[in-house]
């Protein structure tokens, strides 16, 4: 079976600084991978490469069997729209739009807007009663669930999450964790960056990064 994504000897340099080196990773459909490591270890750089927001300095990145290095900006944009759902630690919600519209904006840049689909996505994350609320009127946990609903609306193959519980309290962290578990059950491929060992434990595999290198691959 073709892996959902595959990294072959990826290297990323910022000037003289090596952010990533010798990264090899193969992820299959429905897998939950947790990338862990201390600050500055290259976790976010790796996530940016995976989401096609950044390009590796060396190595090969195959996304659905396609070499990402051979794609131009427009093609990368299409793949990002179609295949990838992004979840951020800082939520990155548009402050002047309602919860419903924050989901619909992802539909807008994907294909067409469908209010009923957007409502269903919000209902799925338990925000059916918050459709017209603006992000500032939502709690941190609700904002993150809104961010997840937005990432799911276009039914992406891969969910890339950068510290999704980093700004949440324990109770909300549990809600988000449950949500990820349900998404895995639905067959979503999840790549999650976290400092949180508790969150890491739920993954199928844990990748530890240190100084830009993969130290070990542990099976949870």
């Amino acid at each position, binding site marked *: 079976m073709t892996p959902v994504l595959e990294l072959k000897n990826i290297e990323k340099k910022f000037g003289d600084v090596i952010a990533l080196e010798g990264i090899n990773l193969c992820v299959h459909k429905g897998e939950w991978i947790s990338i862990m490591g201390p600050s500055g270890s290259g976790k*976010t750089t790796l996530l*940016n490469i995976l*989401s096609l*927001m*950044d390009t590796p300095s060396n190595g090969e990145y195959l996304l659905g069997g396609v070499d990402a290095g051979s794609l131009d900006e*427009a093609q990368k*944009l*299409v793949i*990002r*729209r179609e295949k990838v759902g*992004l979840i*951020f630690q*800082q939520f*990155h919600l*548009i*402050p*002047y*739009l309602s919860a419903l*519209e924050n989901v*619909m*904006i*992802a539909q*807008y*840049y*994907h*294909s*067409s*807007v*469908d209010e009923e689909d957007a409502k269903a996505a919000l209902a799925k994350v338990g925000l059916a009663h918050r459709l017209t609320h603006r992000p500032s009127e939502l709690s941190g946990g609700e904002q993150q669930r809104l961010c997840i609903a*937005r990432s799911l609306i276009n039914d992406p193959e891969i969910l890339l999450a950068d510290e999704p519980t980093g700004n949440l309290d324990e109770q909300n962290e549990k809600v988000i964790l449950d949500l990820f578990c349900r998404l895995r059950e639905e067959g979503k491929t999840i790549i999650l960056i976290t400092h949180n060992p508790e969150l890491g434990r739920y993954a199928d595999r844990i990748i530890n990064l240190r100084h830009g290198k993969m130290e070990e691959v542990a099976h949870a």
Partner: protein
Amino acid sequence: MVANKKQSLRSAFLLRSVFKSLRFSYDRTLIIFISIMLGACVTGAFVNVYLDIDSKMRKELKAYGANVLFTPQSVEKSLFFDQSDYEKSLHVIPKGSLLGASPYLFGTVRLSLGDAVMAGVDFAGMKVAKPFLEVVQGAYINVDFDERNALIGVDLAKKMELKVGSSINLVNEQSGFSTTIRIKGIVSSGDKEDGLLFVSLPLAQKVLGKAGQIHLVEAVILGDFDQINAISTELSKVGSFSAKPLARISLSEGLILDKIKFLMALVAFTVLLITSMCVNTTLSSIIFSRTKEIALLRALGASKRNVATLFGTETLLMTLFASVLGAFLGFFLSQFFGTVIFGSGIDFRFLSIPIATILSLLFAAVAAYFPIKRSLNLPVATILRGE
């Protein structure tokens, strides 16, 4: 059909987002709106004044009096020309361009205390041709062919000891014609008119025995120097006289108008430049505060074109409303300018609306171009990471 529905849903969503965005940052939106509106308002006002200034200024400059002089073709042959030729020639002048004209016939008459120079005139026409003539006592004669009343220059009145209401007996010794006229008003210009006796042209022709003859005509014709020159040439072709523009007045009219128009264009340009700088600064600040939003949209799959469309639509909506409103308000501002400068309103010119709107939109577009362009080259990953 389905594709159309999808497209209309997308367009409706874009507009909804744009209006929400404008409302959300209403304070900065308001600054841009007011800047553009003021720019369009001043531009609209100046365009209105610009389009109306020709007639306004020319009417103002007509206070200096006649700008075309009709004289005999050859003074060596005759000092007179036919009044009928002058009257025939008037059809050459475009309709509405002749503000007024008066023929003149001069001659010496004997009064009780001595000789005086009498001028036969068209009183209504002379009022336009010699607007500087001031009535110092009595009243002006407003009837063209009043043969019972006369005006007298202030110096002559003093010399002849004549007052308003005094009677003068005018006699043509050759024909035996005699009449008595009454002084209705004493006039002054501070110039040669102060030594003249003004009577109606037909009366002067009878007294001087010069029926149908005149010495000269003074006329006030609307137009710039070139137009007046062309009209004068046409007039001269009609008969026994030659018409010439009084270059001193007509040329200076053109020069003053050109300078005023240039000054107005310069002021309008400066205002628009200041407006666009204000728009540029404010828009830069808005876009700077929305870098995360732009980066997010790019991360969600928005192309550079999508982002440019979003900000372009926001800017266009804002500037379009502000420009059109400003252009209409410009008419009222032009009324203020008209009242303060010319003492009368300025005619509404519809052309001022599209001109002011398009100019304001152009300046706003230039102002918006660079901030939007900068926003498209933001490093998405770095911004979303919060670094």
